[in-house]
């Protein structure tokens, strides 16, 4: 059993108990997490109690759900009843525990999944590396000397390492896709507003999405279908009808127009990142190119809006407890707090203009391919990288190719590709808003045709008890 769907099928069929699966996951976490540092809390007692409940349902002949007995964990900015929501920050450590689960956690539990803990991240989700100043760096399971990416680094590394088959994360400017690429797992950021953010600590309200990590397209589609639905607790959650993706996964894709993003998306990437895109394009027989105009300016506008909204959310804490922030986060937030409103509003106006231009692009193409990151995982502590002969900072530039896409809320899946140097890389499959099903259909073909990612040798390849 190496994915969530196969675990759930085995639990529902009574071939294995949810308790056995949960205990196995807890044992893997106990054995491995001290070197990976994915988890900030492990919810052993409630996990075992929830698993026992699932087993009771099976024994009574009831269907415990699509994700019966599947262990999962969430980035520590999702509320978990009884646990303090950290959002990666020391300042939050003494806050009272959450009184109810985030909507996404509730939905997964209702589908039979078993929550086993909370996962490490960059402070307030402001970063691409998960080198958390307070809670330590999460290490990349493929090479423990390297970063897992961020800000959902714990979420990506836990799946890559085989600790759990399924995790939740959040993505403001690439915080699901970047760590998914660097750790070699699937990371899905659906359309802005498609999934409820109720009970999730925000970073930048007009950019924040939630999404998930898994090892197969079928798992990604299953979880997406489970998480959809309007939510009165989240004012930006869409009231559009549900779009069930799972039944569409094996549909023929010959009617889907696919192209490679050129210009901005092929400059500033290492050769291996472009080779990963080409590998996917070859598998799909894609020869067309498409330009997303002004992507560099979109990234700049995204930077301004993020800095301004993020700082505004934390203004009181910046006034009262500046010394309790990670110094790097504090300095960025303080600078963001000083942005004039005219700059912020111009960035928002540009956002509207850019959205209209990208809508035009999607009149001629359905799915666009682009690298997820410009490089594979850098070393922990590494500050700079060489791109196009220029030495640039790593932390902001890992989001080079993700930021212009979340800027207008496009749905994107990062698919894992094995690079020549042995480290994973990601390729983004991008679609127009609310076209998640198209992405997942294409991803299903990529999964079948393109060389699969090798799981880290030091970690578990499957989730069998």
């Amino acid at each position, binding site marked *: 059993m190496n994915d969530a769907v196969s675990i759930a099928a085995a639990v529902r069929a009574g071939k294995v108990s949810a308790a056995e699966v949960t205990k196995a996951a807890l044992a893997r976490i106990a054995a491995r997490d001290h070197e990976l540092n994915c988890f900030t809390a492990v919810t052993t007692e409630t996990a075992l109690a929830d698993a026992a409940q699932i087993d009771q349902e099976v024994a009574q002949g009831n269907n415990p759900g699509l994700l019966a007995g599947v262990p999962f964990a969430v980035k520590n900015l999702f509320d978990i009843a009884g646990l303090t929501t950290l959002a990666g920050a020391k300042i939050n450590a003494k806050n009272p525990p959450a009184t109810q689960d985030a909507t996404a956690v509730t939905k997964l539990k209702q589908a039979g999944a078993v929550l086993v803990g909370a996962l490490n991240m960059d402070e307030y989700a402001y970063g691409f590396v998960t080198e958390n100043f307070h809670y330590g760096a999460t290490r990349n399971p493929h090479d423990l000397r390297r970063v897992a990416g961020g800000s959902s680094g714990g979420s990506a590394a836990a799946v890559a390492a085989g600790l759990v088959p399924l995790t939740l994360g959040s993505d403001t400017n690439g915080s699901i896709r970047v760590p998914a690429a660097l750790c070699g797992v699937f990371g899905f950021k659906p359309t802005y507003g498609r999934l409820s953010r109720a009970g999730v600590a925000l970073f930048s309200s007009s950019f924040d999405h939630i999404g998930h990590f898994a090892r197969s397209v079928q798992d990604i589609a299953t979880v997406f279908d489970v998480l959809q639905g309007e939510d009165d607790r989240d004012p930006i959650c869409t009231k559009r009808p549900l779009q069930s993706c799972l039944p569409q996964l094996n549909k023929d894709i010959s009617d889907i127009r696919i192209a490679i993003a050129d210009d901005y998306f092929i400059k500033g990437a290492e050769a291996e990142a472009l080779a990963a895109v080409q590998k996917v394009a070859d598998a799909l027989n894609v020869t067309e190119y498409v330009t997303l105009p002004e992507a560099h300016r979109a990234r*700049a506008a995204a930077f301004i809006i993020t800095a301004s909204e993020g700082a505004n959310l934390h203004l009181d804490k910046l006034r009262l407890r500046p010394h309790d922030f990670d110094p790097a986060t504090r*300095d960025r937030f*303080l600078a963001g*707090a000083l942005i004039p409103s005219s*700059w912020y509003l111009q960035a928002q106006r540009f*956002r509207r203009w850019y959205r209209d231009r990208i809508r035009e692009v999607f009149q001629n193409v359905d799915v666009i391919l682009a690298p997820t990151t410009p490089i594979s995982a850098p070393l922990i502590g590494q500050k700079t990288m060489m791109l196009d002969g220029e030495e640039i900072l790593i932390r902001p530039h890992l989001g080079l190719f993700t930021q212009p896409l979340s800027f207008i809320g496009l749905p994107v899946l990062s698919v894992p590709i094995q690079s020549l140097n042995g480290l994973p890389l990601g390729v983004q499959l991008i679609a127009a808003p609310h076209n998640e099903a198209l992405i997942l259909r294409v991803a299903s073909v990529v999964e079948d045709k393109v060389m699969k990612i090798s799981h880290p040798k030091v970690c578990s390849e499957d989730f069998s008890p």
Partner: protein
Amino acid sequence: MESQSLNVGEYVDRMALLLDLQITDEYRDGVVANFEKIKAIAHLVNSFPLPEDIEIAPVFEP
């Protein structure tokens, strides 16, 4: 704000006063460096000629 002569250090000090933010000597340089970066990035957006009828959306929908 786009003036070449803007003194970012002075701007940071005055705006911090207005917003009641205590920016101590310990991290003032870091804040100034970050705002210098923001200023350069903002120039990229602010210098782009947008049609006058482009408004921000009160509720953003992709």
